[in-house]
């Protein structure tokens, strides 16, 4: 095993492996402290960053952070690495990659062309020596476009998941929240419900609820009920209208096992959903969620820092060409990301790594009440993410998810970002909003107390 070292003012710092070096170079966060992986001082952290900057990218192909023999995610990363795509950056170090990414001459096309040559560990490594503005600037240059019934990820667009959760899956409560969200122009990424009960019956009835609304108003959107992948496979068998298959994923085989999944199961689900051919303009059918700390909380991190584990989850995602992938950045609690500053940093890292690896990256910018964060932190983060070209964020009524008990971004917040930064929803959905008289040509909401959707909402209770 190679040893890594760097001296600062006669003090020599030694790092016994690549995974230790990556952990020590990581900007401070509570989860790495909890795991006992964090740098002992600010000086040790920067020594690790200096040292990491000099590591050749080829090292990442020879020294894996979790053994190839025992982890199928490592095998996926190594076996799917594209040497031809890697060729233009093969000669670089981590520090050299940072400068190559930021160079004017490196444009969207070149970034897309090298994506398959970049491993998650390379992406994580370079992010650790980048400032927030670097993470924003490079992510902004990456363009990742996916399609199902609309087109996501185009330049100048900012999409949203409509998240109408309800603690008992009450269909009228959920429908009311959907009407409300649509009237704010939200939902182009997906209308996605976290079900309270992970049962085939609950999933099927919620799918029919959204599908019926979608067809009644000819909405160019896709739906998802975020049950376990095995539940989705069951209801596909039974003929339920499944647009997207959802699953939470992580960056190690053992963490995925704690979620009750492996790569073969995801492959089976991807094939089953594609086979339904429900997409009208594309067939990206998977929806994944991730989040820093998931491997540690499953006690399955193998001594790898939480951000590197997170980037490895994106290798899992990209094997299935998802329509949507988002990090859920503050959900897991302050023992992993302590405050608004750590949540913000993690969100920008995750968004950058996801985009660099070629994924349609969104973000659930959120926090729990025991984290040192509030809605101002979410406001700030939304502006940063949208500036970085983030594909989508969440639209939760009043930012308050009454089922999952956390705070995210609201319908209003999405409107705020779109208006303030001059961004639009997906083009097909934007045209639909104008056709239905929800928003005008300038993208502003139209006040109309006699709107069709309001009249439909008024029918609720008589359903």
């Amino acid at each position, binding site marked *: 095993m190679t040893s890594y070292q760097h001296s600062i003012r006669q003090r020599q710092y030694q790092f016994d492996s690549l995974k230790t070096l990556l952990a020590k170079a990581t900007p401070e966060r509570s989860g790495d402290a909890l795991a006992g992986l964090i740098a002992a001082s600010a000086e040790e952290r920067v020594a690790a960053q200096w040292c990491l900057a000099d590591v050749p990218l080829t090292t990442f192909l020879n020294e894996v952070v979790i053994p190839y023999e025992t982890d199928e995610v490592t095998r996926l990363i190594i076996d799917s690495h594209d040497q031809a795509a890697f060729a233009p950056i093969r000669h670089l170090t981590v520090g050299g990659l940072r400068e190559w990414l930021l160079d004017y001459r490196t444009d969207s096309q070149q970034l897309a062309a090298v994506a398959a040559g970049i491993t998650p560990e390379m992406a994580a490594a370079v992010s650790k020596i980048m400032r927030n503005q670097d993470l924003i600037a490079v992510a902004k240059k990456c363009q990742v476009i996916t399609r199902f019934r609309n087109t996501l990820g185009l330049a100048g667009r900012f999409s949203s998941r409509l998240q109408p959760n309800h603690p008992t899956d009450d269909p009228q409560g959920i429908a*009311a929240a959907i009407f409300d969200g649509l009237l704010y122009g939200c939902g182009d990424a997906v209308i996605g419900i976290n079900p309270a009960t992970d049962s085939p019956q609950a999933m099927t009835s919620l799918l029919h609820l959204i599908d019926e609304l979608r067809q009644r108003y000819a909405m160019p959107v896709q739906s998802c009920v975020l049950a376990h992948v095995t539940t989705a496979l069951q209801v596909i068998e039974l003929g339920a209208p499944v647009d997207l298959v959802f699953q939470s994923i992580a960056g190690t085989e053992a963490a995925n096992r704690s979620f009750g999944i492996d790569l073969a199961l995801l492959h089976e689900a991807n094939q089953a959903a594609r086979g339904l051919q429900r997409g009208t303009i594309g067939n990206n059918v998977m929806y994944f969620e991730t989040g820093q700390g998931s491997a540690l909380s499953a006690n399955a991190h193998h001594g790898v820092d939480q951000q590197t584990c997170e980037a490895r989850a994106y290798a899992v995602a990209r094997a299935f060409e998802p329509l949507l992938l988002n990090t859920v950045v503050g959900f897991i609690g302050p*023992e992993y990301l302590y405050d608004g500053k750590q949540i913000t940093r993690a969100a920008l890292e995750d968004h950058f790594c996801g985009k660099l690896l070629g994924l349609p990256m969104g973000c659930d910018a959120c926090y729990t009440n025991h984290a040192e964060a509030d809605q101002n932190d979410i406001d700030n983060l939304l502006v940063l993410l949208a500036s970085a070209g983030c594909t989508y964020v969440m639209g939760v*009524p009043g930012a308050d998810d*009454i089922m999952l008990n956390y705070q995210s971004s*609201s319908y209003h917040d999405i409107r705020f970002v779109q208006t303030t930064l001059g961004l639009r929803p997906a083009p097909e959905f934007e045209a639909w909003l104008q056709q239905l008289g929800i928003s005008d040509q300038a993208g502003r*909401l139209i006040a109309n*107390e006699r709107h069709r959707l309001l009249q439909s909402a008024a029918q609720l209770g008589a359903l």
Partner: protein
Amino acid sequence: MAEQSENELWQRLRQFTNARIGIGRVGDALPTKANLAFQQDHALARDAVHAQVDFAAIASALQPEFPQILRLKSAALDRATYLKRPDLGRSLHVESRLQLEALQTDPCIVALVVADGLSAVAIERHAVPLLNIIKPQLESLGWSLAPLVLVEQGRVAIGDEIGELLKAELVVILIGERPGLSVADSLGIYLTYAPQRGRNDAERNCISNIHPQGLSYVAASDLLMYLLGQARQRRLTGVALKDERQQLGATNNPTLE
């Protein structure tokens, strides 16, 4: 007035959901009332997380029912450490551990523990009335009780260490749950059969959501007595032990498992 009718519509729809639907807008933003209502709910939740439980007051309120009360601390000595290091909140401070070891108590059936958890308000409002309902029920069964333990900066698993040191067959811990925006004072009860350090979540049962809008004290206490009885009979707690009282009445709803 049309505007009023839209307001009335959303007000009516709110009977189906507590979600913040139909809260209106000015430009793209929240109206002042909705904005401040959210801030207020978040403020209550934050205060609940950071407030300190007045354990001295709780101890004196419980003194008539519980002649022997022990005040202990977890290894997380302040709130910031508690929030960052769940592992420390799960174990006793070394002095508290020595204190329990020195007690040399006789084996007993149930050890009752109260921990602040993530909501001081939940403990201050609900711990005393709930314990005053639970204790007579335990006594009517003739079950021996360990001294009552009040523990600061504790997480759920600390109950197992306390139960082990008190040689209890079962430990029952009352703990403040993570405050949501709508409810900041929810209390949870966890029970473990044969408590000892290192037990995991799958080996415990939980009765959650105890507060005025949720589960009542009496309903919570009844469920606790049922689970304790089953736990003693079957010599276990955890995923294999479920609330099967309903199923005797044969409900036919397949989604209610």
